[in-house]
């Protein structure tokens, strides 16, 4: 022994320690990777030695390398070794390494359970502390479950140092193992009044974090926290308490009133910004804004004034929260916010911009946008400028241009924005121009004039068009000029501008619009010139077209080419007619007659599919495969749909066509979303009461129509002021008149004073295009929240007790609805005939249970699948049963004990058709999904059926399992296609498969003499556990054990029973259940809860199995839900396990 240590010490002399390693890495800057790889080799050698000091040194170095980004997962086991050293020095290093390197999928974590448990109960508080700290970083659901009880005990440790850590780590345990919350909560509550301030603050911390997830449970603690808040002076604790109240007040408005005073006091008295900020946040969350309003606002002003970017940022953040509920109170801080636009920090500027979006009103829009325009001019960096540009457009266009009173101003703003260099948002400006010009009829004259100027000055925009998107604006300009060419002052000039040779350098889609609209313009020009009786000018115009169009005919862009050659031929024909002195203008104009109306993007969706028409059905036989796809020209024009080519083949007789046309017309007439060519709908809108006094046309006169060069939007601000004044005066006059007529002597309501929002009337009317209504979410699921369904006030159920440190076959009794299993359970010989009879009986007994029986053709395998439907917050819980008749199969096939069949019932609970389902499970080392040969280890299995709505079906999957003495959780996904009438979407559903230990047990009958022999043999290890608070009849208890854990009763004498079961790999499990007292509390005391391993005599593993049996009931359920728009798709997974 001594020699070994000597040898180790000598070795150590030559080892590098951490400092050497760090130094070495710093000295090998140029070949760091090589140096480290030699270091890792050395470390591997060191880890092979027996000396723990050497190992600890190696692990310490590995931790450093891990931080540098090297993979050290291979050393996980060595880390566990160092962790389990009895010396604090090494233990500390081991736990540090573990906390840095382990994560949930690290296998060896399973091995640490006992070690951690030992350390937690160590007499040395630093051992315990180190273990707690480490655990906080790598706690897994399994660890949480197994150690919850130990940690709970530590919460009442004598040393505050341990109490404090234990309380804090409980939060991590709750997250991983929510079931532990209810049993641990009373003690956590006690800790709120712990004499040690550190423990107290830890408890406040944990409860505050919990309350953020589900505040409802913690309302009862409010008085206690209120006391703490008024007495505590620790800012850290205060912040947490105030945050907690922030979560509670929305649930309990009365709390808000009580909080006003202490919060106001804090806001006024505290010097800590962080506390102030938290108070303000809570005030905002509490909605009791007006009472504390003045105080908060003044403090917010402090936020704005203090010269710290952090505080400024938070102030803006808080304001944006206030803005949602009380926009008016923020609007008065407009100047402050505008100032923030000048800030050096971009994130502050962006925050301020966000705020502006919510702050605008009819009154201040022009002013705000004017300021923003100034910023656009001086902003450096294109990203920020682009951000500004989009924000300006967002602000102006929000809710159907609600805040714009003067669209001429808006058009000028848009035109000014086109002068921005290097912006990427040309298309945005363009779409705004188009939108406004189409929807605001009164603005067209003005818009067309502006667009004509733009087209004339196109060279300004296209100067560097290669790299910017601003030329997109020309797309809009050309279209507007063409479409509304009747408003053009000088169409001939514009036509020439559109046919300049330079146009050919523009992107193809813009050229196409140019060509098309040149034709429109041509029509207009022709009409004007023919009226003049001078035919030569008209012919000259045609000649101009014929001269210029060939340029476009040669274009590389197909669409430009097609349009140009089409129009060229047309113009040539027109020219011919002109030479014969035929009047053609009328007919040419007819080409472009009719008005284009705006249509909401989703309007098409609202047009119902005519009855009897199936859009997905083949109209004629689908083409055979040999008809090669690539022969078909693939979408030369972007909008062409492949289906069009097929409709050509339809042969529908005239009558049918006429009938359909009629039906369609009828539908269109009834459909409010279809915008009809007739102006009736718009007229209705304009005639709406209260709108008719809007002076739509008058205003146009007050604006100079001919703006030389590019317009300045500023002038509109002034004009707008004048207009409003005029309007107000007019209104007053009207009012007076009214008053005179009515002779009512009431006071002046609308007299001067600040004008209210409603008083400002827009100068132009926007055609509102109805957007599709948002679909109403009727029932929002909060299933993502862990603690939602936990009710802390409910008394503890037996099943929720934390696993105690001992071995047992814990029959967690947690299935609230079942009570009819008695007959089933007492059956000692599960034979086919009897089981069938019983099933019949049971069916009669509980009618709400649906029992489904499937029978194999040969009758060898009979399966009984039982469902219990629990109404539990939208959840349907399904349970399983072992087929009692399978016993015979298994006994003959013990070698096959490594295979498990999982039956999954897929039930479609939505109204859509589900198809192409693919089932995939992420294999673990222990359990693998058997896949057909040739498929990779990550391929999914196709579910061999489709599911129409409301239908359920069962699929089976085979898993290979290596060890059955540990529970398994496999993650998996199900992908499928949801098919609706009009669409089909790809959906994904994640689920977990739980393989618990008792699912590997098979109900096996055992005679009492064989049972006695087994016990006598001494192969079995025993342990016992006492459960309290079980208040159900003894036979029910037995029934449950039989039912859920697949035991069979060997012998029963009064309130004592011995039970037996066997695993698929042949392990014997014996169990003695005994009731100790005859009162309400019955106690179970399994004496031999043991697995004698037939194959492996590994006692540790058997212990493991026993522990893991706890709560299996909870785990066999897996309910996956997913929202799909309004519908819920429920797919219920239903597992049971069996061997071949």
């Amino acid at each position: 022994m001594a020699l070994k240590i000597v040898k180790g010490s000598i070795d150590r002399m030559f080892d590098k320690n951490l400092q050497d390693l760090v130094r070495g890495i710093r000295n090998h800057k140029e070949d760091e990777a090589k140096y480290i790889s030699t270091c890792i080799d050395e470390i591997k050698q060191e880890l092979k030695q027996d000396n723990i000091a050497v190992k600890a040194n190696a692990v310490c170095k590995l931790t450093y390398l891990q931080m540098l980004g090297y993979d050290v997962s291979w050393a996980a086991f060595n880390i566990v070794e160092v962790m389990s050293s009895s010396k604090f020095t090494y233990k500390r290093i081991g736990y540090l390494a573990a906390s840095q390197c382990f994560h949930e999928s690290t296998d060896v974590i399973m091995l640490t359970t006992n070690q951690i448990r030992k350390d937690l109960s160590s007499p040395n508080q630093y051992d315990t502390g180190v273990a707690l700290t480490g655990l906080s970083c790598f706690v897994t659901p399994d660890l949480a479950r197994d150690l919850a009880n130990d940690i709970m005990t530590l919460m009442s440790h004598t040393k505050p140092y341990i109490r404090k850590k234990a309380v804090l780590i409980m939060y991590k345990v709750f997250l991983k193992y929510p079931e532990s919350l209810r049993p641990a909560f009373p003690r956590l509550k006690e800790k709120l009044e712990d004499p040690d301030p550190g423990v107290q603050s830890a408890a406040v911390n944990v409860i505050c974090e919990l309350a953020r997830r589900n505040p409802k449970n913690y309302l009862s603690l409010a008085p206690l926290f209120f006391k703490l808040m008024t007495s505590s002076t620790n800012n850290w604790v205060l912040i947490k308490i105030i945050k907690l109240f922030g979560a509670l007040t929305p649930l309990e408005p009365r709390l808000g009133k009580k909080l006003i005073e202490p919060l106001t006091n804090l806001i006024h008295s505290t010097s800590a910004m962080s506390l102030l900020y938290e108070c303000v946040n809570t005030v905002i969350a509490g909605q009791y804004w007006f009472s504390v309003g003045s105080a908060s606002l003044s403090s917010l002003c402090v936020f704005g004034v203090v010269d710290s970017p952090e505080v400024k940022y938070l102030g803006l953040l808080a304001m944006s929260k206030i803005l949602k509920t009380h926009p008016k109170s923020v609007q008065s801080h407009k100047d402050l916010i505008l100032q923030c636009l000048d800030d050096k920090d971009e994130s502050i500027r962006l925050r301020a911009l966000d705020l502006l979006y919510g702050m605008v009103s009819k009154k201040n829009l022009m002013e705000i946008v004017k300021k923003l325009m100034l910023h656009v001019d001086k902003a450096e960096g294109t990203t920020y400028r682009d951000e500004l540009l989009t924000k300006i457009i967002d602000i102006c266009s929000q809710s159907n241009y609600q805040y714009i009173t003067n669209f001429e101003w808006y058009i000028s703003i848009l035109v000014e924005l086109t002068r921005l260099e290097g912006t990427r948002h040309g298309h945005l400006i363009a779409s705004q121009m188009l939108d406004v010009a189409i929807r605001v009829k009164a603005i067209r004259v003005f818009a067309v004039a502006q667009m004509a100027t733009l087209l004339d000055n196109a060279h300004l925009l296209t100067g560097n068009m290669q790299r910017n998107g601003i030329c997109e604006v020309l797309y809009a300009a050309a279209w507007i000029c063409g479409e509304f060419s009747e408003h053009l002052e000088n169409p001939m000039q514009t036509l020439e501008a559109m046919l300049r040779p330079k146009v050919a350098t523009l992107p193809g889609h813009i050229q196409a619009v140019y060509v098309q609209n040149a034709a429109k313009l041509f029509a207009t020009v022709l009409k004007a010139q023919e009226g003049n009786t001078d035919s030569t000018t008209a012919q000259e115009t045609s000649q101009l077209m014929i001269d210029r169009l060939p340029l476009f005919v040669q274009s590389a862009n197909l669409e430009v080419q097609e349009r140009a050659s089409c129009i060229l031929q047309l113009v040539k024909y027109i020219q011919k007619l002109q030479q014969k002195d035929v009047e053609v203008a009328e007919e040419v104009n007819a080409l472009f007659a009719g008005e284009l109306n705006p249509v909401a993007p989703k309007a098409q969706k609202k047009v119902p599919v005519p009855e009897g028409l199936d859009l997905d059905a083949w109209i004629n036989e689908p083409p055979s495969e040999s008809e090669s796809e690539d022969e078909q020209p693939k979408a030369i024009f972007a909008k062409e749909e492949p289906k069009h080519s097929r409709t050509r083949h339809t042969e529908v007789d005239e009558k049918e066509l006429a009938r359909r046309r009629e039906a369609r017309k009828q539908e269109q007439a009834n459909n409010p979303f279809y915008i009809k060519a007739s102006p009736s709908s718009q007229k209705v809108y304009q005639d709406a009461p209260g709108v008719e006094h809007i002076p739509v046309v008058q205003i146009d006169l007050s604006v100079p129509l001919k703006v030389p060069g590019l317009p300045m939007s500023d002038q509109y601000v002034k004009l707008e002021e004048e207009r409003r004044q005029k309007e107000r005066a007019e209104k007053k006059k009207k009012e007076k008149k009214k008053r005179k007529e009515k002779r009512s002597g009431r006071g002046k309501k609308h007299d001067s004073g600040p004008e209210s929002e409603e008083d400002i009337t827009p100068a132009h009317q926007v055609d509102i295009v109805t957007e599709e209504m948002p679909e109403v979410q009727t029932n929002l699921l909060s299933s993502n929240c862990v603690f939602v369904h936990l009710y802390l006030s409910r008394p503890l159920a037996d099943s929720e007790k934390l696993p105690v440190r001992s071995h047992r076959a814990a029959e967690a009794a947690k299935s609230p609805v079942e009570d009819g299993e008695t007959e089933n359970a007492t059956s000692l010989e599960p034979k086919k005939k009897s089981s069938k009879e019983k099933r019949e009986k049971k069916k009669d007994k509980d009618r709400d249970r649906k029992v489904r029986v499937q029978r194999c053709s040969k009758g060898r395998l009979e399966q009984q699948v039982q469902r219990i439907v629990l109404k539990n917050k939208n959840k349907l819980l399904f349970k399983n049963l072992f087929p009692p008749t399978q016993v015979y199969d298994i006994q003959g096939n013990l070698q096959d004990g490594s295979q498990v069949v999982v039956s999954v019932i897929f039930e479609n609970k939505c109204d859509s058709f589900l198809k192409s389902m693919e089932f995939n499970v992420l294999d673990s080392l222990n359990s693998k999904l058997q896949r057909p040969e040739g498929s990779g280890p990550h391929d999914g299995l196709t579910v061999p059926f489709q599911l129409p709505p409301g239908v359920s079906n069962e699929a089976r999957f085979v898993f290979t399992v290596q060890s059955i003495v540990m529970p398994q959780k496999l993650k998996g996904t199900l992908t499928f296609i949801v098919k609706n009438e009009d669409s089909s979407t790809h959906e994904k559903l994640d689920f977990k498969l739980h393989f618990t230990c008792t699912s590997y047990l098979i109900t096996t009958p055992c005679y009492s003499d064989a049972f006695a022999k087994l016990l006598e043999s001494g192969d079995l290890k025993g342990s016992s556990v006492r459960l309290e608070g079980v208040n159900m009849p003894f036979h029910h208890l037995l029934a449950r054990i039989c039912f859920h854990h697949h035991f069979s009763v060997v012998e029963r004498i009064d309130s004592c029973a011995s039970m037996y079961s066997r695993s698929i790999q042949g392990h014997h499990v014996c169990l003695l259940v005994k009731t100790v007292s005859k009162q309400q509390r019955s106690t179970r005391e399994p004496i031999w809860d043991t697995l004698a391993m037939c194959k492996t005599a590994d006692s540790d593993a058997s212990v493991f199995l026993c522990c893991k049996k706890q709560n299996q009931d909870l785990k066999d359920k897996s309910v996956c839900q997913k929202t799909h728009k309004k519908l819920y798709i429920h797919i219920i997974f239903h597992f049971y396990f069996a061997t071949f």
Partner: protein
Amino acid sequence: MQFMLLFSRQGKLRLQKWYVPLSDKEKKKITRELVQTVLARKPKMCSFLEWRDLKIVYKRYASLYFCCAIEDQDNELITLEIIHRYVELLDKYFGSVCELDIIFNFEKAYFILDEFLLGGEAQETSKKNVLKAIEQADLLQENIDFQMRLFAGTVGEVNIAVVVDQ
């Protein structure tokens, strides 16, 4: 708090503490992204930024950046306070701390952090208590080391070198 990173001006990671379980790959990706983002910011800029669905709070002390990720509802200012408190603790422990102290004694830096924060929450607000706990744990460690040395020292000449080495 979700995690804490310490890195140098050159972008070299000096310390990392994760309070949420993530795979190494994910951690590396996050680290790389964050180091880049934070280093790109100018000195006078705001210490907070939004990143994915988290809030990042960072502060620079000398050549080291301390960077924390917190959830949406957490208080940024108190996080800044936590960073500052940690720096103070390091300063007290090492005696005017510099980057090299943290590089060469990185395990000590972790121990201090673990005494100050647990599971992402501040566990001890008193500086004195944190340092006391660390000192006592160190004392315990040194005692064991000392015994080891004594024991090794009785065996022969060679082991004197071992003592020196330690």
